[in-house]
């Protein structure tokens, strides 16, 4: 699974992108965020409050209940501030 991090999520995780395969029982976006929060100090800081984050699967914003698949591109970021 391709994971992308933007803005302060990227800074806290310490990576812009990586490939990770979560355990088989991690089946939704919400479960993925809970699992990522356990992957180390930077991840813990980034995913401490999932309510602050938006998630896109294959470049479409989705709710935490959305199922994930191994071949997905999953991106994590705070709300947009462009313009």
């Amino acid at each position, binding site marked *: 699974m391709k994971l992308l991090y*933007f*803005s302060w999520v990227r800074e806290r995780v310490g990576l812009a992108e990586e490939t990770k395969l979560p355990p088989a029982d991690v089946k939704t976006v919400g479960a993925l965020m809970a699992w990522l929060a356990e992957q180390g100090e930077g991840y813990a800081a980034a995913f401490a409050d999932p309510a602050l984050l938006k998630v*896109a699967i294959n*470049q479409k914003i989705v709710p935490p209940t959305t199922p994930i698949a191994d071949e997905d591109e999953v991106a994590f970021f705070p*709300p*947009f*501030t*462009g*313009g």
Partner: protein
Amino acid sequence: MIRIQQETFDPGAEIKALTQDRTEIGAVVSFTGLVRGASSGGDDASHPTITAMTLEHYPGMTEAALADIEAEAHARWPLTGSVIIHRIGRLLPGEPIVLVVTASAHRRAAFEAAEFLMDWLKTKAPFWKREETDAGARWVEATEADEAATARWAQSSAG
């Protein structure tokens, strides 16, 4: 027409390109957004001075989001043309960040579509701003005002 680029842009050239050799256009509206030297957190004197602004984005998703937003504007208003240019990278106060240009037979459509494009772009396109100030750097936070500005267009969709 959509462009995401580091280099600056020329609003006059984009207006000219949209209107050149056309006689059905009655109205062209442009919006240029610039980096301000005062923090976006407010206008009072206590806010730190901004020394630079860095724009990060999500390549691929950004292009798709801007194309969707532009298509939505064309579905809602009878536009003869439009331009969205958004810069990325590190910019200094006074530099332009974003340009929206809309052309239509009539002025109301051009004005409304330009406001709509800016409002949607702020909350629906994957850009993030990081301010460097004389008191340190911080990621700009999304505002309720921007969410409200996006929401006011929800009722009037023609699509």
